[in-house]
């Protein structure tokens, strides 16, 4: 820093925080230290006693800041206006240059710019000591520094960058059109004249150099893209569109020979005058353009990606997409279901009646989940039936098969628990567990889907009712109404009989 002071004279120094202008580094440093609180102990003494201020005071020695408003220091009786400490020579009494009150040195450490009338003057003033109050009450004081809105600058910068890019792209595309047209014309000219091969080569070379100025070989020692040095094995190549020199590494793909046919096929939107057919391309495999990877990206790849996006998905992919939406539904529903299940189970252990609304929504959720699982398995089956067109598809199919099997194993487990909650006794639970496990196996059912649904609904209602009756029995017992208990338990028996009947029906046939 000391070097800079002496040697470099900078006219325009901006504070990085508040963007104030300073004419030298020292002032900027002082400003940073004082106004933004960068003072640290080691350099504090140096910054506070700036040599700059010394020279300035020498210059303005005649015009001293006014002192008539100062409070006079009286030994053994003056007190610091801030801490009320008795001031002595050892505590270095100091007058605030702004308000004139007297302070101990500790409480007069801030520095503000004042003019000779002791008024705030941030532009032409000089640095003077002042008390904390005068410091914080100066105009424009902010506790947390200044802020500046740079959004517009950023936007304009970004826009200009984007414009540059689109211009560059346009330029490259124009060059490509000229190059391709020229190449095809040259080819037509020498078609069927094998003896002019050398001349043809020359013409092409001239054409290529006319499109864009090639960079001089001797100035370049490293590949423009991968920065690897050129040598005997890695030769220099020119990109035909931007003219930069790149290597021909196969692994890094810094440059490539792109066949003209493919180039034109992808960039059909460009105004080509000549077109090369696939047949012609097959006959003349040397009709190609060397492009560096950047130009390939700008001209070719972005278009290729757009085109592939527009193409419809293959059967495999579309099936997989619908599968993943089903997965999303299942994964979204499962947590709520489990939560509700937990809730109902705890109420069950506490011997209270679960909220009937809870049971209702539990049943609904479960049905929704089961339905989703069924669609999932159906989709998986459909997907596995699709004949794979190549090896990649085959491997994709295999992994989807594994993943879906795992998914069902993982997620179906909590669903098995639900009958334990809904069933009144163990017998029914055991009964209902069996169809739960079976439901996804390929059992041909004698019942129609509608019937199964109706039965399942009835089962749900029955179990709900059993719950209610159970609680009624408890109530009646508590109230010692034993004749009611008789009737109710008779009904309970009837209910469980009917529910086991239905479960038998469903159990033999499996759920849908």
């Amino acid at each position, binding site marked *: 820093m000391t070097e800079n002071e002496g040697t470099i004279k900078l006219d325009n120094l901006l504070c990085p925080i508040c963007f104030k202008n300073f004419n030298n580094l020292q002032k900027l440093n002082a400003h940073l230290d004082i106004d933004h609180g960068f003072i640290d102990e080691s350099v504090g003494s140096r910054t506070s006693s700036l040599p700059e201020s010394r020279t300035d005071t020498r210059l303005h020695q005649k015009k001293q800041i006014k002192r008539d408003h100062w409070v006079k220091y009286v030994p053994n009786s003056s007190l610091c206006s801030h801490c009320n400490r008795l001031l002595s020579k050892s505590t270095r009494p100091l007058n605030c240059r702004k308000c004139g009150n007297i302070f101990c040195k500790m409480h007069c450490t801030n520095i503000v710019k004042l003019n000779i009338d002791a008024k705030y003057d941030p532009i032409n003033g000089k640095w003077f000591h002042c008390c904390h109050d005068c410091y914080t009450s100066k105009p424009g004081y902010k506790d947390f520094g200044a802020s500046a809105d740079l959004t517009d600058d950023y936007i304009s910068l970004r826009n200009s960058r984007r414009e540059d890019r689109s211009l560059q792209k346009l330029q490259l595309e124009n060059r490509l059109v000229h190059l391709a047209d020229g190449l095809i014309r040259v080819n037509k000219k020498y078609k069927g004249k094998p003896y002019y091969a050398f001349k043809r080569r020359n013409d092409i070379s001239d054409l290529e150099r006319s499109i864009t100025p090639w960079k001089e070989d001797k100035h370049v020692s490293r590949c423009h893209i991968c920065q690897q040095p050129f040598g005997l094995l890695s030769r220099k190549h020119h990109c035909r569109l931007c003219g930069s020199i790149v290597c021909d590494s196969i692994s890094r793909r810094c440059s490539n020979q792109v066949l003209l046919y493919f180039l034109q096929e992808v960039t059909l939107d460009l105004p080509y005058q000549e077109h090369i057919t696939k047949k012609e391309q097959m006959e003349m495999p040397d009709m190609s353009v060397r492009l560096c990877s950047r130009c390939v990206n700008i001209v070719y790849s972005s278009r290729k990606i757009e085109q592939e996006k527009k193409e419809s998905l293959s059967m495999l992919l579309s099936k997989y997409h619908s599968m993943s939406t089903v997965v999303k539904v299942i994964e979204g529903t499962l947590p709520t279901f489990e939560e509700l299940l937990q809730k109902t189970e705890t109420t069950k252990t506490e011997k209270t009646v679960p909220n009937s609304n809870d049971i209702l929504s539990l049943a609904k959720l479960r049905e929704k989940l089961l339905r989703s699982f069924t669609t999932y398995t159906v989709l998986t089956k459909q997907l596995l039936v699709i004949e794979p067109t190549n090896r990649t598809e085959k491997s994709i199919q295999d992994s989807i098969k594994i993943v879906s099997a795992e998914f069902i194993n993982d997620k179906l487990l909590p669903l098995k628990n639900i009958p334990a909650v809904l069933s009144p006794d163990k017998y029914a639970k055991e009964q209902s567990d069996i169809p739960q496990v079976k439901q996804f196996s390929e059992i041909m059912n004698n019942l129609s889907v509608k019937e199964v649904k109706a039965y399942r609904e009835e089962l749900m209602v029955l179990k709900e009712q059993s719950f*209610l009756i159970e609680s009624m029995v408890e109530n009646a*017992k508590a109230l010692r*109404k*034993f004749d009611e*208990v008789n009737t109710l*338990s008779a*009904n*309970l028996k009837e209910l469980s009989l009917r529910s086991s009947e239905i479960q038998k029906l469903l159990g033999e046939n499996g759920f849908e």
Partner: protein
Amino acid sequence: MSNPITSIKLVLLGEAAVGKSSIVLRFVSNDFSENKEPTIGAAFLTQRVNINNNTIKFEIWDTAGQERFASLAPMYYRNAQAALVVYDITKPQSFIKARHWVKELHEQASKDIIIALVGNKVDIIENDESERKVAREEGERLAEEEGLIFFETSAKTAENVNDVFLNIGEKIPLKNDNSSPNDTTITEDQRINLAASANATSEASSCSC
């Protein structure tokens, strides 16, 4: 000794929100609540009534009107001695449903079941007769055709509610002393039926735990 307790199994049927539970509440605890929650499944209540020196115990099964609980209804009306088919006189749809219930009861329930057709919510039309959507004559005609007891009631004002049940109670054939004692009938001299109640508790406890 001369007046045995007869218990009657009675079931309430009808569309949702016609006031089945309200009628029962009025009959059992002489109470009414404006915003009743819909019944879930079927509720069970009892009430004793004295008719002509006979004590009749009503065991009332108040079924839920919502369609999804329809499958429960047969279980309760199958061996019921009496049924209350309720409709809302301000809702024609409920009367159509009531017709269906009557038909179903005749087909499925026991032959000698006593059915009462009840048009509820008379209190609504007290001030404004135009609110009535099901004519009294319509109900009467249906009752006559099918041989039903017919009443128009209001659970809110308690109008005719007790009469319905009393009327049913009168029509039930009384159990005599001579008739063989039934499970559901407990005679007065069997008052000290500790055995029965002990039996009941043991049975219940073995079932639930």
